[in-house]
Structures are given as structure tokens and as C-alpha cells.
């Protein structure tokens, strides 16, 4: 048969029913675009959190004072002061599975340099701190063991601090900043790490020897916590056991006493995050699946209703000599044109929505090829099937029955 003519017929029929064609397309567009966007968002969040966790170092061990917290029970402040310098030294000397270990203590207040000031917190740390947190000195040097011994008034600062205290672009190294009356000499600048996935600025950081922070700023003898890193990811568990044994001995706990400290590993955190993320992705996939279903039902309805409503037209065409197959091919061409155009517009819209989210809202998005193919396939197949199926029924009628159809 002459497909050019049938193509022309289908195009004319579409042109005469722009609204109907548009509505059908809209179902497909929304279905495809929402699936692509949802999946891309879910995947993006998951991937960026995974990247974040591994960039933090998957073998990090965090030790905090205080036992397992029981909900609603107020803790005795002395319980929060159990991590002392001699505990740290014992750990440092005895642990075999630990590659690096550093205490930390934080003080918060206002940093001042000339006319500029900036509210932040100063982290008192050991030498190993930058290794454990995977920080890099970009300029200058890290403080040394002797700086720690002498509680030297020196610090290493992050990019955000540089930008805020030295807005004129002058070299911060060698200059002195004041922190709550304590003058600190800047000896190093850290390489920028940007924001993490929770939106925290990782460059808003000031590192000083922990002795300096504890003695000169806080006047305390306990740490806020201790960071360590295991020799490798595989021995993290041995390392935690070792740390637990040493700390219990140091704290003279009886066998029946609970721990008065808490050990967390990055591994646990990352497992927990992954579980949450998988849940989130499943949820998004469900939402996407439902929108696909709703889109599909919309397409189905409009296609079905429009063919039923066009049965008279089908009868008329058959009365002037259209064969059943001509009617079918015409409706199939219409359905394919609508579905494929709608699908393509949906893909474009979905991808631009993803890009918009990525660049305007700064969210991580990863467009998944499988979601593009799946949603396109589902919508176009639904569209084509429900364009074809009722048309087949109508095309099988005797012309006079189709003409009489009410």
C-alpha cells in the first residue's frame, strides 16, 4: 500500500486534533521526564555520599567520651571528661593496628586579623590529624611535635578562613591572627576540599596544637575525642578491639562495668548511610514507577477514548475504500508520532531538569541511561499499544457498523 499517503493522512488527522495529540503527549512527557529526574537525583545523592565517605577515609576510628547514651538521661559532666592525655599516650604507644592517631579538642569564638574578623572554631589536633582526615598542606608547613610540647601559638588554616581574614589577597603565612586574645601565627594553609554532601564547608577550619587549645584557650585536661586510623580497612575491627581493651584498662573498669567511651568506625557510618541511601533510592524509584504508571494510564485513556470517539471517522474512511490495514497503519503512525515525539521531549525535559538542579541548586545528579531507556520504552510502548489496540477493534467492524457507532 501507499505509505506516503497514509503518512499524510495521519499527519492531517493529528493536525486537526492538536489538543488531543498534545494531551496524550503530555502524559508521556511527564512520565518520562519524572522518571529520569527522580532516578538521577537518587543516584546522585547516593554516589556523592559514597564518595564523601571514602574521601573521609574508610578506616577512620572515632573515640568519644561517655558510654552508650540512653534516651532522656542527662549525663554527668564528669562522664564527658574521661579521655585524658595519658590515655592518648598509652594508645599511641601500645596499639599495633593503628597507623595514625590524634586527639582533638575544639574551642569556638571569634578570629580577628587587623580589621577583619570571622566566627569559627579552632581544632586542637595532633600531627597525625591531617593524615587521618586526608587533608593536605598547600602552602607553608604543618606544626611539629616540638610545637605541641611547647604549646606553641601557631596554626594552620583553611581556604574559607583565608578568604575571610585576608580579603585583599595578601599572603597569610607569617601573619598573626588573634583568637579570643590568644595570638596565633599562621604557618600553613590547607588545600581546599569544598563542601561535603551535608553542605558543610570543609575549608572552614583552623588547626592548632591540641596542647595550645587545651591549655591556653579552654584550660581543660580532657579531649573532645580521639581520631585514629587503622592500618587498613580490613583490620579496623582488630584496631577497635585493641583500643577498647587499652582504654578499659586505663580507666580501671571492672568486667561488669559498661564502657565509659564510645568507639565509632567510618565503616559503621558508611554502612548506615548506605542503608539509608538505598531506602531513599527505592523510595524515589517507587515514586517514579507510580508516575510512569499514572502517565501510562493517561496515555491509555486518551488513546482509547480518542479511537472510540473516532469510530465514525473510521467508518467514513472505510466507506470510501480504506481497508482495515489502512486504518490500522494510520492509527499506528499517529500513535508512534505522538509517543516518540512525547518520549523525546520527555527525555529532553528530564535531562534539562537534571541539569537545572545540578547547576542552580548545586545538587548532585547522575542521569542513568537505563532509566532513560526504560521510561522511554514503557511510555512509547503504552502509547503505541493503546493507539493500535482499539483501532484494530474498530478496523475489524463492518463499515456500516462503524458509521452507525454512537
Amino acid at each position, binding site marked *: 500500500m501507499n505509505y506516503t*499517503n497514509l503518512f499524510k493522512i495521519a499527519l492531517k488527522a493529528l493536525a*486537526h486534533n492538536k489538543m488531543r495529540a498534545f494531551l496524550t503527549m503530555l502524559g508521556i512527557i511527564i512520565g518520562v521526564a519524572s522518571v529520569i529526574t527522580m532516578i538521577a537525583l537518587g543516584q546522585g545523592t547516593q554516589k556523592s555520599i559514597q564518595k564523601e565517605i571514602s574521601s573521609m577515609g574508610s578506616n577512620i576510628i572515632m573515640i568519644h567520651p561517655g558510654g552508650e547514651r540512653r534516651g532522656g538521661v542527662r549525663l554527668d559532666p564528669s562522664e564527658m571528661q574521661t579521655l585524658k592525655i595519658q590515655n592518648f599516650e598509652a594508645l599511641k604507644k601500645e596499639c599495633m593496628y593503628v597507623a595514625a592517631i590524634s586527639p582533638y579538642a575544639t574551642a569556638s569564638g571569634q578570629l580577628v586579623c587587623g580589621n577583619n574578623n570571622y566566627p569559627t572554631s579552632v581544632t586542637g589536633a595532633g600531627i597525625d590529624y591531617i593524615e587521618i582526615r586526608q587533608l593536605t598542606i598547600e602552602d607553608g608547613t604543618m606544626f611539629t611535635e616540638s610545637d605541641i610540647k611547647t604549646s606553641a601559638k601557631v596554626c594552620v588554616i583553611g581556604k574559607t578562613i583565608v578568604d575571610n581574614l585576608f580579603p585583599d589577597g595578601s599572603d597569610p603565612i607569617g601573619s598573626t591572627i588573634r583568637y579570643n586574645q590568644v595570638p596565633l601565627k599562621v604557618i600553613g594553609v590547607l588545600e581546599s576540599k569544598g563542601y561535603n554532601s551535608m553542605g558543610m564547608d570543609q575549608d572552614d577550619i583552623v588547626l592548632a596544637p591540641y596542647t595550645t587549645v587545651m591549655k591556653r584557650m579552654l584550660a581543660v585536661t580532657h579531649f573532645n575525642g580521639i581520631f585514629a586510623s587503622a592500618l587498613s580497612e580490613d583490620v579496623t575491627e582488630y584496631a577497635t578491639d585493641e583500643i577498647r581493651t587499652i582504654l578499659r584498662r586505663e580507666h580501671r573498669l571492672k568486667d561488669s562495668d559498661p564502657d565509659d567511651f564510645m568507639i565509632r568506625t567510618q565503616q559503621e557510618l558508611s554502612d548506615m548511610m548506605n542503608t539509608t541511601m538505598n531506602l531513599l533510592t527505592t523510595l524515589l524509584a517507587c515514586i517514579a514507577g507510580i508516575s510512569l504508571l499514572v502517565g501510562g494510564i493517561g496515555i491509555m485513556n486518551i488513546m482509547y477514548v480518542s479511537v472510540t470517539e473516532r469510530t*465514525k471517522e473510521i467508518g*467514513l474512511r472505510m466507506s*470510501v475504500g480504506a*481497508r*482495515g490495514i489502512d486504518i490500522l497503519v494510520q492509527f499506528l503512525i499517529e500513535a508512534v508520532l505522538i509517543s516518540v515525539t512525547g518520549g523525546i521531549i520527555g527525555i529532553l525535559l528530564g535531562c534539562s531538569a537534571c541539569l537545572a538542579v545540578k547547576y542552580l541548586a548545586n545538587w548532585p545528579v547522575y542521569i542513568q541511561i537505563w532509566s532513560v531507556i526504560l521510561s522511554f520504552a514503557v511510555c512509547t510502548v503504552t502509547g503505541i499499544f493503546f493507539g493500535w489496540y482499539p483501532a484494530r477493534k474498530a478496523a475489524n467492524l463492518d*463499515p456500516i457498523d462503524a458509521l452507525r457507532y454512537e
Partner: protein
Amino acid sequence: MSNKVIELQNIRRDFTVGDETVHALRGVSFDITEGEFVTIMGTSGSGKSTLLNILGCLDTPTSGEYLLDGIPVRSMSKSQRAILRNRKIGFVFQNYNLLAKTTATENVELPLMYNPDISSSERRKRAEEALDAVGLGDRKEHKSNQMSGGQMQRVAIARALVNNPAVILADEATGNLDTRTSYEILMLFQELHRKGRTIIFVTHNPEIANYSSRNIRLRDGHIIEDSVNTNVLSAEETYRTLPKDIDD
């Protein structure tokens, strides 16, 4: 000897409605030769439309044989019958049955769209000729919803002419039109008849029988009268005697 366009042999058509069987045609036989203008008359429900639909291959008889231009129709497949409709038959409906929102030319072109042997320029030319022939040369690009009933019926007649059919079938083609317009349409059919077309015209109106060459009368699915009209009136003359400016 002029050849037979239509041969009907003992045509029956039964409809089943629920448990009951309606016998719409109970054995109808007649022949129509080329160039005849036949009117089919009868009371409402006598089976006129049923007969015409069978003649137009829109419907299939329950039994009996139908030869169109010598071709047996009953044993044909649906597709073959569609092609037969496309090449041999022009059908004019009481309610015009035009494509909505579509220009006169495109409506008239429709049958030729389903004939792959006809090029698009040929199609256009023939559609315009057919529109000229029904006196709508100045309405070619008007859409179906921009025309009067009489104009729409002319478009439908042009569409029935355009494939150069063996027979033109009209089911109450003037049923929806006022008297003057009815006579205009009748004039058109008479002119087509003069040019040698075979026409079968179903009507309620007994007067119209005076303008055809032969009249078949149906009652309850039987032919009760089949007579040749020796004194064919001219629709044009009657038309001139009609009062012009009186509202119908």
C-alpha cells in the same frame, strides 16, 4: 447491448437483535444496467437503507448473490471489498459524512488517497474537476463546518464522483435539505445521469420518482413494484416554477 452493472439474486438480510431475528430483506432480485437512474422507495423500515448498504458493499447479505460489474461480492474478503468500494462505488449519505475541519478539496480527495495508483497532482486535478462539476468551484478551500447543508451535500456528491465509479448510491441524499435545495441536488443527479452515470437513489418522497428512469418499490423486505418511467420530468423545469423568495 448495454451491460449489467448490478445483478442481485435472492438477497436476504437478517439482523439478530437479542433473541429475535429481524428479516430486513426477504429475497430481493433485480438487475440494473449501465446508465439507469433508479429510485428506490418504500415506507419507513421497508429495508431501503439495508438494500443500499449491501449494494454499496458497506454491509454483507445473509444469503443470495450480488454481482457488481460482473464481480461476485459475497465471497470476497473485507480488504477486497474495500478496494471494490474504492474503485467502483460512490456513496452519498443523508448526513453527508464529511471529515470535520477539513477543506472541500481534501474531503473530495479522500477516496483517491486510498488508491496508490493515483499521483498527488492527478488527485488534486480530479478533486477540483469534481468540485467544479457540482458547482462548488468557488468553495474549494472552505472547511466542512463553513458550508451550508446543500453545499456539504454537493461536496459529498463530488466525493462520490471523484473515483469515476460504476454506480453512485444515494441514501436520502435530499432528506436533510429544503425543497429548493433538494431540487438543485436532483438537477445535479439528472445531469450526471445525462452524462451516462448509473445512479441509485433511495428516497421517501414519491415526487422524486417522476425524475428517475426507473422506480423500485419495497415493502417489508420484498419488491412490490418495479416500473420503468416513460415520462421523465426535468428537475430544472420544476425548479424554475418553485416560488423563489418564500421561506420554507
